[in-house]
C-alpha cells in the first residue's frame, strides 16, 4: 500500500510518472472523466482548509468518483476523543482512498500505519503538505517546460514557510537548480536546511534582503506571506513588510519570462495590480493543482488511463 505523507515519499521515477499523467489529463480531461467511477475519496479534515479540500474533491469528481468526509474537528469523531488510528481503521471500510488534514504534525503518518487504504497528507501543521509541492512542480513543469536548470527565488517568510522548505527539498533533486532566498534576517531559512541540504549538496544559493536587486536573475519567483505574528515588535514589521511586497514597479525589474507563484491564500504580499500581468500565474497554479491531485489519486488507486 502506497501512502504519500512527505513530498519525498515519491521517488524521482514515481514523481515523473505522476507529473506526466497530470499532463495527459490536462490535455484531454474527458478521457479520464469516468476512470474512478464507483470509487470513494474520504476527506478527513481535522481543521478547516476549504481551498485544499475543494481541490481534492474536485479532483475526485472530475474522475467520476465520489467524496465523503468532514471538514473540521468539532464535527468529527475526534471531538468525542477518538484516536486517529481508530478513525482511519473505520474509514478504511467506507472509502477507497483518503486525504487527511490535521493540525498536529505526524497525524497522517500515524493514520498510514493503521490504514487499509492509501493515505494522502493534505497538510499536517507546519510540517508537510506534499500535494502543494506536487502542484508547484507541475506548475513549473507545465509553464516553463522543464524542472532542471532553473533559478528560483523564494521571498517572504522562509523560516516558517513549509511550502518553501518542501519545494527546496524537491528542486534539489533536479540538476542545475539555483536558489535565491529573499527575506528579513528574522525569517531566514532554518539552519538545518542551509547546512544539511544546500551546503551538503553543493547547491548554489544566495541570500538577499532586497527583492528588486535579484529579480533580473530569476526564472521563478515564489512568494509567501510575511505574518505580523512572526515579528517581535510592530516597528520591525512595519519597517520590513513593504520590502517583501510584490507590486507592478518591482515586476518591471523582472525578465519577461519570469513566473510568479504563490501557494495562496494571498493577503497583501502581492498587490492586486500584479494579477493582470501575464507572468503572475498563481491562479493558474491553483487550477493545475486539481490535475496533479487527479493524477495522484489515480496512481495510488492503481488505475491507469481510459
Amino acid at each position, binding site marked *: 500500500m502506497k501512502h504519500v505523507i512527505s513530498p519525498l515519499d515519491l521517488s524521482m521515477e514515481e514523481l515523473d510518472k505522476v507529473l506526466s499523467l497530470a499532463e495527459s489529463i490536462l490535455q484531454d480531461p474527458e478521457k479520464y472523466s469516468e476512470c474512478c467511477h464507483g470509487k470513494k475519496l474520504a476527506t478527513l479534515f481535522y481543521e478547516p482548509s476549504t481551498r485544499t479540500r475543494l481541490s481534492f474533491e474536485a479532483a475526485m469528481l472530475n474522475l467520476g468518483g465520489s467524496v465523503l468526509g468532514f471538514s473540521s474537528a468539532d464535527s468529527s469523531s475526534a471531538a468525542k476523543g477518538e*484516536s486517529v488510528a481508530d478513525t482511519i481503521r473505520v474509514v478504511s471500510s467506507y472509502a477507497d482512498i483518503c486525504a487527511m488534514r*490535521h493540525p498536529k504534525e*505526524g*497525524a497522517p503518518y500515524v493514520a498510514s500505519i493503521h490504514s487499509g487504504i492509501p493515505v494522502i497528507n493534505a497538510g499536517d*501543521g507546519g510540517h508537510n503538505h506534499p500535494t502543494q509541492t506536487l502542484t508547484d512542480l507541475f506548475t513549473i513543469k507545465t509553464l516553463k517546460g522543464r524542472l532542471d536548470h532553473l533559478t528560483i527565488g523564494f521571498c517572504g517568510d522562509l523560516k516558517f514557510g513549509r511550502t518553501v522548505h518542501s519545494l527546496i527539498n524537491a528542486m534539489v533533486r533536479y540538476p542545475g537548480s539555483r536558489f535565491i532566498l529573499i527575506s528579513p534576517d528574522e525569517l531566514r531559512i532554518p539552519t538545518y536546511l542551509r547546512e544539511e541540504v544546500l551546503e551538503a549538496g553543493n547547491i548554489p544559493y544566495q541570500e538577499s534582503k532586497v527583492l528588486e536587486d535579484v529579480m533580473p536573475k530569476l526564472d521563478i519567483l515564489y512568494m509567501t506571506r510575511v505574518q505580523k505574528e512572526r515579528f517581535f515588535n510592530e516597528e520591525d514589521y512595519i519597517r520590513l513588510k513593504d520590502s517583501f511586497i510584490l507590486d507592478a514597479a518591482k515586476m518591471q525589474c523582472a525578465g519577461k519570462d519570469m513566473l510568479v507563484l504563490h501557494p495562496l491564500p494571498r493577503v497583501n504580499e502581492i498587490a492586486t495590480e500584479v494579477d493582470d500581468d501575464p507572468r503572475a500565474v498563481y491562479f493558474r497554479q491553483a487550477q493545475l493543482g486539481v490535475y496533479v491531485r487527479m493524477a495522484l489519486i489515480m496512481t495510488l488507486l492503481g488505475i491507469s488511463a481510459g
Partner: protein
Amino acid sequence: MLNIGGLNQGVVIDHIKAGGAMKIYEYLNLEKQDCSVAIIKNAKSSKMGKKDIIKIEGPITVDLDMLGVLDPDLTLDIIEDGKITAKRNPRLPAQVTGIIRCKNPRCITSTEQELPHRFRLTNKEKGLYRCIYCEQAYKR
C-alpha cells in the same frame, strides 16, 4: 568506597556530559539493580572541562548501547577479572522506542497519549535522532 582498582566485574561509564549522571542512573534503574554504584560528578577532564562518571560493580542486564541516545559521547569501559577488556563508545541504535520523548508541542504525540515515542537515527556522526512522526530533532 569503590575504585577502579577494586572493580572486578562491571562497567565504568566515563565522559558523561557534566550533569548527565543522574539521568543515566535513572534510565538504568540502578536503584533496583543488584550492584554497587559510585557516581562521580564534576570530575576534571582535560578533554571536556568537567564530566560525570558512573562505576558499576556487578552484572548489568540492560543494553548499554541505548545510553548513546542520552549522550552519544560517553564511553563504556567493560571490566572483567579486574581488567578493562573493552573501551568503546556506545553503538547508536537505528531506532529507539520509549526511551526519549518528543518535546514538540505541535507533534501528534502531544495529544494522543498512547502513541509510542519512537525516534530514528538520522545522523550518525552527530548522534542525531528525529521523531518518526513530526521529524523534529531530539535536543538533549
